[in-house]
């Protein structure tokens, strides 16, 4: 949803958050905020807990301690009905797109619309085509996920994530498995959606190119410290954060030929 009088209050607030599985914390003492219409990156090396944090942010797991507030409301402590309402406020683009393989792209997008709106079939179909057009998949509404390429699946997954015009979209490794050009196109798409619809984007990634191209702010998680070791705009961090780990992560380059 595009807010024409946006408030400055953050849309996501994590307070003293500890995340993990089976009572065992993988990351702890996380405190951060995500502002409205911001492109916010969660970065870090493999195994630092990026995806664990994402799974907790989208409510697939409950925090071990601490709290996550989405638009001022605690997701973890909300009852089932309230959670269902809150779920309408965010979309998720999964790493493997997670499109339902037995449904066409149009049906993948209309399913959340059927579930949460009272739109007529015609309107749902029209919106599905619009969403597909928005992500550059005009005319592919009757295709099944198995009939399109990996980059197209990501776009279709994004169209599904945008089906309910959520205020926040979470991206899990959107560039994974994509070539640099397709990855760059996806970044442009994310930027365009943020600019057009005012959507807040939370992106879990370790793609430096994307982070510097489209990221407004980031948090850097560290496997050893098991918490956030840096927070801020990417260019500011690289210019002014003296932490060796931050510099090592943000200044890494491909090996010269």
């Amino acid at each position, binding site marked *: 949803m595009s807010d024409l009088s946006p408030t400055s209050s953050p849309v996501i607030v994590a307070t003293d958050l500890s995340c993990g599985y089976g009572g065992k914390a993988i990351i702890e003492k996380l405190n951060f905020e995500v502002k409205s219409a911001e492109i916010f990156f969660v970065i870090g090396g493999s195994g630092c807990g990026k995806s664990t944090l994402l799974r907790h942010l989208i409510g697939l797991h409950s925090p071990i301690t601490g709290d996550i507030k989405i638009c001022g409301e605690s997701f973890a402590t909300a009852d089932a009905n309230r959670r269902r309402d809150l779920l309408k406020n965010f979309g998720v683009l999964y790493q493997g797109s997670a499109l339902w393989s037995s449904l066409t792209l149009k049906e993948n997008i209309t399913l959340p619309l059927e579930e949460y709106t009272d739109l007529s079939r015609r309107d749902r179909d029209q919106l599905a085509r619009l969403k597909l057009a928005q992500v550059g998949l005009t005319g592919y509404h009757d295709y099944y996920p198995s009939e399109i390429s990996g980059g197209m699946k990501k776009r279709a997954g994004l169209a599904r994530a945008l089906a309910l*015009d959520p205020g926040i979209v979470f991206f899990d490794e959107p560039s994974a498995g994509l070539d640099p050009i397709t990855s760059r196109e996806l970044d442009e798409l994310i930027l365009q959606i943020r600019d057009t619809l005012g959507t807040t984007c939370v992106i879990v990634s370790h793609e430096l190119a994307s982070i510097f191209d489209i990221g407004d702010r980031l948090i850097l998680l560290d496997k050893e410290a098991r918490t956030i070791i840096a927070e801020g705009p990417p260019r500011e961090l690289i210019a002014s954060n003296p932490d060796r780990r931050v510099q090592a992560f943000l200044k890494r380059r491909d090996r010269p030929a």
Partner: protein
Amino acid sequence: MSRSLAASPPTADLRVEAGDIHVNLTGRWRITAPSPKWHKTIKGQSAGRVIIHAENLAAWDSSLVLFVSEASNWCRAAGVYCDQKSLPAAVRDLVTQLEDKTQHPVPTGRTPDFLTLVGIATTDCWDKAKQYSNFVGECVLSSIYLTRHPLKFRWRDSLAEMQRCGAMALPITGLIALLVGVILAYSGAIILRPFGGDIWVADLVGVTMTREMGAMMTAIVVAGRTGASFAAEIGNMRANEEIDALETLGIRPVNFLVIPRIVALGVMMPLLTLYANALGIFGGMMIAWCLLDIPPPAYWVEMLTIVDTSDLMTGIIKATIFGAIIGLSGCLRGLQAERSASGVGQATTSAVVTAILLIIVFDALFAVVFNILGW
């Protein structure tokens, strides 16, 4: 968003001034909440122009785009000018995109034409038959290779499969065989009793179980249980590129995955069939004892007068072949599975259907061949 849903609901207020319709849009438009519909807003009105005012709009999403698109279509049909200047530029862009009539579907390559579908199905059947025979040939060649190089055979995998498809299938196979024996004895008793031939129930159950039902029922249970499991397991491996990894390492998937499973089934099926025969005969014996007052020793002696080794052997030969059919069908369909969740599901279904179809066909062939041979 949630905090705003109750705050200011969306409205579309209509007023007529100097023959023009002014539509004032206010509030927060949200697709998941009720919002005004154009056809209800405009009901019964006609105008020189429609002017949309969005100065008091708090927030918008696709619901507003749908509303404006409907308004725009109505104006076009009525030949009326629609002023959308006060709408946010992004809304106007999305409305234009939504109304883009030049959007043509990209051809999918799928065709709904009936005759074409029949043709495709026919060639598909022929292709499947060819693939099956090719696969059988490949398995034979692999078997010859592994017989010459026994150390290359995956003994450990094969033993694990034997446990899974043999020992772990004992309860379900036993239960089904016992019930088949009971059903045969009951049905036989109904026919034979009026003729005073109660004792022949033993012959009926004995011959039917050893020659036909033991092998057949075991094969059907194993096809549903183990054949489906083979197809799902190998189909998942295909989806996860594990099969590709084997091929790129120069390891033939047939040697690695298929032959150990077929050998496991080829060994376990005759044993399961013998076990099923025993339980089926036991079930018949219980019914004869309880219902027909035939004591178990008498039943046993009568059965041995007609059931001999050739009956047992025909059952065992059938069971071995049925085992190979189940293994081949399960593994082939798994290897052919598409790389998706639905592909694995289709492979599993196809494996069971193929196996059961071939079991019935081969059972009929065996009946003819054994009759000619006088077994």
